[in-house]
């Protein structure tokens, strides 16, 4: 009877995996950022973002509107607990007139960029957000008539 054989097989004492197996298998897994790491990284990012955003607002910039979900963003998957990352970027260019730093007339543009990175831990829904404003000046040779 197959059921009898199955029952007999189930009662057999198996050779146990050696105690060293866990130590060999589990330390090989990549470690995620620990809680302290997340707090430190989050704090640093928030401080940097606050300072840079304050500078940018002081120069007359406007906070971009919050992005409307389009449904294209990756959804949190319960079985893929790696933090998901979402990246957004807003750009605004202002014209600041003609300048002549080296005697040659140049049109001066200031480009403001706000880059927002967001990480979501699908395991518990925790979110971390980092906003990085930056600006750059672009000079383009101007044709003066």
């Amino acid at each position, binding site marked *: 009877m197959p059921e009898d054989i199955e029952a007999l097989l189930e009662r057999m004492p198996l050779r146990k995996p050696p105690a060293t*197996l866990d130590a060999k298998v*589990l330390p090989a897994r990549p470690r995620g950022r620990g809680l302290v790491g997340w707090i430190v990284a989050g704090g640093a990012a928030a401080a940097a973002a606050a300072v840079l955003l304050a500078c940018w607002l002081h120069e007359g910039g406007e906070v971009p509107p919050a992005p409307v979900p389009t449904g294209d963003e990756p959804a949190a998957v319960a*079985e893929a607990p790696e933090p998901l990352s979402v990246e957004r970027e807003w750009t605004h260019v202002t014209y600041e007139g003609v300048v002549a730093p080296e005697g040659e007339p140049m049109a001066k543009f200031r480009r403001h960029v706000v880059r927002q990175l967001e990480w979501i831990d699908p395991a518990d829904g925790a979110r971390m957000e980092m906003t990085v404003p930056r600006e750059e000046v672009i000079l383009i040779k101007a044709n003066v008539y």
Partner: protein
Amino acid sequence: MHRLLERVYQDHRQGLYTLALAVTRCPGRAEDAVQEAFARLWSRGATPSGDPVAYVYAAVRNAAIDQVRRQPPARPPEVASIYNGLPADPAALAVTAEQHRAVREAVEALPAAQRESVVMKIYGGLTFRQMADALGEPLPTVAARYRRALDVLGRHIGGAQERRHA
């Protein structure tokens, strides 16, 4: 992905090791095979498209086969059983010494594919679907092989017990 793998390892530690041992028939190589399989899985980092349990069993089986290919067994081969010896009190397991010996001999005498199917089903607790995914074979083939293995074991164990009683 990594937490998923870790959970599969924790839940199937014994079954995975027993499968590796059934393939390599050497405790040291079985341990190396499980370690190697997980090292590959951790580094790959991709989420399996199918059943994660079947995926991990397939990885451990492949690593065990690689172990055997890399280091063919010495002659005469030292075959390590997947079973432990009987404990001091065999009654605790409800297995007599005679049954223990008969089952052990019968399982060791099975063809490799049948032995693996018994290990995956009985000691891994896999479904036929998971076994088929892990082995990359059709489900009816896997199920039929398992039933053949039980038939062979039944005949072997029954014959051994009759011979001893005669």
